[in-house]
């Protein structure tokens, strides 16, 4: 019978690296999905996944046994993603200030690679707008929206990841959707 996350966390805490390996293998793909939605970049997402597991391991002693390990890990990954997005934004601002002509194409933050049917389905203008609209969300809005919309977490779970009241999490989701609507409705309407 497969052991629960809690059992593996207990073993990992007592120094059993193999138990932590199980947790890493169990949660890596989910964490990558979240990190990619948050950062919009494949390589950044890979870095976030690794950094999150290392941070989680170092903080394992602080983990509250009564909580869900997955939710706790999500919180760490969301914070790692936000740190990275903020750092990237700062770097990009410095770059723009120094060389205004070398500004990054907003679509460049989307994953590169061969075009998939979904990717082709969205016209480049719509993709640019979606990427830009996502970038314009605040840290809390972006996290709340990604968790609610893409990861299917209920507001209660989102609030646990964000460490805020459910009401505040709900408003973050509202604001994110409102901003996305305002930014995308003209282009979606035109594309129809």
């Amino acid at each position, binding site marked *: 019978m497969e052991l629960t996350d809690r059992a593996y966390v207990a073993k990992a805490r007592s120094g059993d690296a193999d138990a932590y390996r199980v947790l890493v293998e169990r949660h890596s793909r989910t964490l990558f999905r979240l990190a990619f939605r948050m950062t919009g970049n494949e390589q950044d997402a890979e870095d976030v996944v690794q950094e999150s597991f290392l941070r989680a391991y170092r903080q394992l002693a602080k983990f509250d046994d009564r909580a869900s390990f997955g939710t706790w890990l999500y919180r760490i990954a969301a914070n790692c993603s936000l740190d990275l997005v903020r750092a990237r934004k700062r770097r990009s601002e410095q770059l723009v200030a120094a060389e205004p002509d070398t500004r990054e194409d907003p679509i460049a933050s989307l994953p590169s690679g061969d075009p998939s049917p979904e990717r082709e389905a969205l016209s480049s203008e719509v993709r640019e707008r979606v990427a830009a609209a996502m970038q314009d969300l605040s840290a809390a809005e972006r996290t709340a929206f990604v968790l609610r919309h893409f990861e299917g977490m209920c507001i209660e779970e989102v609030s646990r990841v964000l460490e805020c009241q459910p009401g505040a999490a709900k408003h973050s989701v*509202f604001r994110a*959707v*409102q901003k996305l609507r305002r930014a995308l409705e003209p282009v979606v309407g035109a594309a129809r």
Partner: protein
Amino acid sequence: MTHLSEEQLILHYYGEAEGQSLTAETHLEECTECRAAYGALQRVLNVVDGLPLPERAPHYGAQVWARIAPQIPRRRRRWELPTPFRWAALGAAMAGLLTVAFLAGRFYPQARKPVEMAKAADPHAGERILLVAVGDYLERSQMVLVELANANPKHPLDISSEQERAADLISESRLYRQTAEHTGDTKVAGVLDDLDRVLLEIAHSPSQLAPQDVENLRHRLEAEGILFKIRVLNSNVDQALAPANDAHRL
């Protein structure tokens, strides 16, 4: 008629209307304006959904682990005795070792001394010992891989025993690989490197494999052609050892 607010529409979209879902549903059926607003909301969120998401392979977790494992400290399970007992155990082991060394010196057949000395003077003796060790290592690796490659893909499989052996082999392989690199034998180093990667993957896989995982593992072993490479390398090792073995027989 009171229209649904934007917040109510969003909550309804996410199914979080807390008991008001039916009311919202009924209202949307009756009110064209709200239905249009809800349709616009759905279109926007569908477009956001359309952004591509790169997929990760089923063994992605094992790859992540392989990258972070060097930074995760491992507990030394064999040293779980309290400190004073550790020293006592170490002392007993040292005393045992000294006794064995003394007895070996006393009773080792004197007649074989010149042969042993000749062997020690032989400049190729070290090389042959290494070849024997590499041959043994390759054979044991081959056994692990053959067991997995021949597993029945229709049944779940417990590979914990193969994983233990793979972990042991990984710790041995470093020395052989480094030696091959040092002597400039890039082909051997390459095969040992490939083998190391495969063993690492086996050691870090879940212990219980579903039939599909067994099938995937077999496919990966076939795709890598690792068993073939090992057989070729092993036969080269045997050939290199053959003259020495013949001389020994004479």
